[in-house]
């Protein structure tokens, strides 16, 4: 409490709002075309989710983010309970269950868990001396590992890896020693064969198919091939809104969700696709800038968590639909269809705005 004279909290970071707002706008525009033959009501639903997300974001930005960090243990515990419920429901129903239905709405608790994990890690890591001790790394690793494991059991490999990304980004920013980073890379490489055994058959197939799409030309390989054709055929300016043949001829599976970016590539071409990448870059830039301008370690770490999470998802999703990375089912933040992801994404950005507004005064 260094400021005895009450300074008015600064306003919101405009470029960040612009980037997020434009991404959500693009989501609506692309979705309208992508689900025209699939289920047109998705567009209205998505608009509703965006509205709710913006409200949540404003609410988060209006007060100090430290409140969230103070409450992060409850948030985290709640998210774990929800994840456990979903994991249990999944075992009972003999299938992949990622949703909880509450009052007719499906809630995807893994999205909530991402935010909760970032908050709880910010709280914990901010209190640790640097460079981080092995003990700190293990404890923080367990904090991120529990939700990662529960999500992995759903089974949802892609979302599970996001927790690892959040943890990695945050421990690096918190002050992990260089030696530990190198050791971790070595250990990670060594563990790969072990991880292979923990995967479901269809997940292994997806990874193999990534190496050779013709292994499963009807399933996962088909998706990659068709998605690449869609993006590539967009050329410089795209085929135009509502004019993508890959889209309308049903060549693109999951095109409202994980593969919405291929519809953008097909219909808006290089110009549109690069614009989305640029907006993601802007998001990364503004969030990291807010984080580094904040003297409060909790705020800086939370910003690091949010950026590792959203940035990682963006790179993985776009890389996947372009055939650069294996298909692991990660949505494009603020763009892909999905209510939980949209609302939680906007809430996280609201928290970043709160760091911007209140972080300097703490």
């Amino acid at each position: 409490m260094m400021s005895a004279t009450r300074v008015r909290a600064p306003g919101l970071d405009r470029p960040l709002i612009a980037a997020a707002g434009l991404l959500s706008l693009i989501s609506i525009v692309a979705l309208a075309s992508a689900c025209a033959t699939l289920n047109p009501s998705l567009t209205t639903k998505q608009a509703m989710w965006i509205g709710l997300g913006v409200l949540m974001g404003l609410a988060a930005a209006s007060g100090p983010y430290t409140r969230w960090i103070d409450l992060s243990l409850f948030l985290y515990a709640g998210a774990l309970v929800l994840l456990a419920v979903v994991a249990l429901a999944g075992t009972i129903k003999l299938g992949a269950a990622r949703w909880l239905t509450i009052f007719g709405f499906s809630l995807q608790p893994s999205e909530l868990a991402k935010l909760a994990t970032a908050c709880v890690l910010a709280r914990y890591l901010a209190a640790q001396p640097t460079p981080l001790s092995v003990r700190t790394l293990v404890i923080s690793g367990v904090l991120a590992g529990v939700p990662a494991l529960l999500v992995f059991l759903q089974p949802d490999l892609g979302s599970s890896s996001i927790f690892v990304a959040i943890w990695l980004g945050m421990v690096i920013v918190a002050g992990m020693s260089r030696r530990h980073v190198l050791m971790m890379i070595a250990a990670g490489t060594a563990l790969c064969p072990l991880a292979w055994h923990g995967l479901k058959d269809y997940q292994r197939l997806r990874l193999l198919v990534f190496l050779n799409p013709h292994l499963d030309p009807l399933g996962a390989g088909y998706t990659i091939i068709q998605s690449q054709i869609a993006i590539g055929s967009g050329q410089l300016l795209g085929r135009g809104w509502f004019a993508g043949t890959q889209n309308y001829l049903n060549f693109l599976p999951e095109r409202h969700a994980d593969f919405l970016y291929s519809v953008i590539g097909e219909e808006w071409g290089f110009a549109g696709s690069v614009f989305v990448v640029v907006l993601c870059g802007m998001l990364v830039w503004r969030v990291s800038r807010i984080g580094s301008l904040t003297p409060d370690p909790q705020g800086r770490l939370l910003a690091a968590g949010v950026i590792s999470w959203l940035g990682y998802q963006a790179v993985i999703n776009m890389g996947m639909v372009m055939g650069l990375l294996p298909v692991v089912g990660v949505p494009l933040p603020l763009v892909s269809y999905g209510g939980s992801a949209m609302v939680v994404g906007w809430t996280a950005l609201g928290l970043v705005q709160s760091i911007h507004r209140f972080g300097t005064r703490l």
Partner: protein
Amino acid sequence: MTDRLFLLRRGLMVGLALLVLRLAFMQLAHGAAYRHLADNNRLRLVPQAAPRGLILDREGRQLATSRSQFRVAVIPQEVANRRATMKRLGPLVDVPPGELDWRFDEDRSLPFLPATLVSSVPKPVALRIEEAHLDLPGIVVEQAITRAYPLGSVAATLLGYVGPPDPDALPALKPYGVTPEELVGRAGLEQALDAYLRGRAGGSLIEVNHVARQVRVVGHREPVAGQSVILTIDARLQALIEGQFQQHQQPGACVVLKPDTGEVLAMVSFPAFDPEAFATQQRGAIQQIFRDPRSPLMNRATDGAYLPGSIIKPLTAMTALEQGVVTADTTIQCPGFLTIGNRKFHCWNRDGHGPMTLREALRASCNVYFMEVGRRLGQERLRSGFAGMGFGRRTGWTMEEQAGYLPLRVRLNEGEVALLAMGQGDILITPLQAAVMAAAIANQGWVVEPWVVKALGEVEVGHTHARPLGWSSAHLAIVREGMLAVVNDPEGTGARAKSDRVRIAGKTGTAQTHIQGHPHAWFIGFCPAENPAIAMAVLAEHGGSGGDFPAATAKVICEAIVTPAAPADPPPNG
């Protein structure tokens, strides 16, 4: 350590820059080639649906099977003269051209996507359309596998139906290769066993040239057929019982069990529905099923909870004998009513039955006797006797079921306890629970868990789970004697179930409902009485007296059990 955030930022920016490079490579450098691929649509996916597993009865008769179906569709952009085409097609498929025109507009979405005109035509018709394809530009015949139920509506409420997957459930099914076009189980066993019944669709990815001729097969995956399921159901018996309900247009339910194992031989719920209406998406027929006020989709045997009425009396009797509040020789006077507190409870026979022993009270279904027994037992002991039978709880049935209702925590007054003892008042049971009760009396006091899936593919999965009640066989003999008298004595309330071919023991029940004068009618029983092979419960909704339709149906069931299927019996699968 602030610079570490820049490190993170730089890492992500490098990733994003790589994406831009990749985009430039794909869209700018090789864009034309990709555009070519997209335009010519050289890759075509020719799906090949996997046949769904069969559902067979215990004798191997087919209850559900897969059938090839021919669908007539139209590709809007390829139709030259719509009127002329419809006029020519109409007589071939036996649909007025105007109706075809209407369906065309109803189902069309995009110029190049086929719109369905007739969802199923016989093979000869399909061939005739194929032959005439030059005169019918834009008309295509597509082959699809659909679900067929050779016995029609037999066991429909148990089997359930298939249909396109629920859009909300689709995301969870996707990792298992389910597409929105596929048929998945939406109700009943089709839904409960969907993971086993559903195969994995296959197909070929082919490359075609500019005139749509196949150039080469890029990839192929064999469809994997679903597993067959063998049920414990006896389709002949099932159809026979359904025929009884059908003949009298009597809504109700019936469950026939093997008392020693809990195998369900028949589970009837009437009215039923035609499950093929869902498999072939006949909108009109489906709407009719949904709108039917008699709820044909509901499986009354497991999802209907009813007041049991007098069929509970054998259980009250067993509880009383076990608790020692009466013996076989205890006589209770029935003056036609019983006064509890200041209320008078009447027997159904207002003139009174006179002095009654347990056997006589069962035979005459004397209410006063059992109300008095209930009063002597008291709420605790009566309730624990009923709870021991599993009332108020699920039986452990394969699918969803109602638990019924038993007042566990509520304090009842003496009059309510007396009513409970004769099956009126605060208690609801399902026909399945009633059949389990009949089975327990038939099998020396074991509460069996009813089951219906005998085998999945080659694997036997049916197991008997039973819980002993520890009933003394001397007491059981008394109750069974009373139940024999119900059917076999001329004065018994279930005399219509008497058969000269097999000795049947049973109990009738008539349960008051909110519609005055239209009580639910019940019959529970087992046969042959000396060494029971089956136990059953028959329920007729608002069916009057348990001695009428339910008792008569029980007789038909029991006689069918002792009579081997005559060769003249129409074989169910044609």
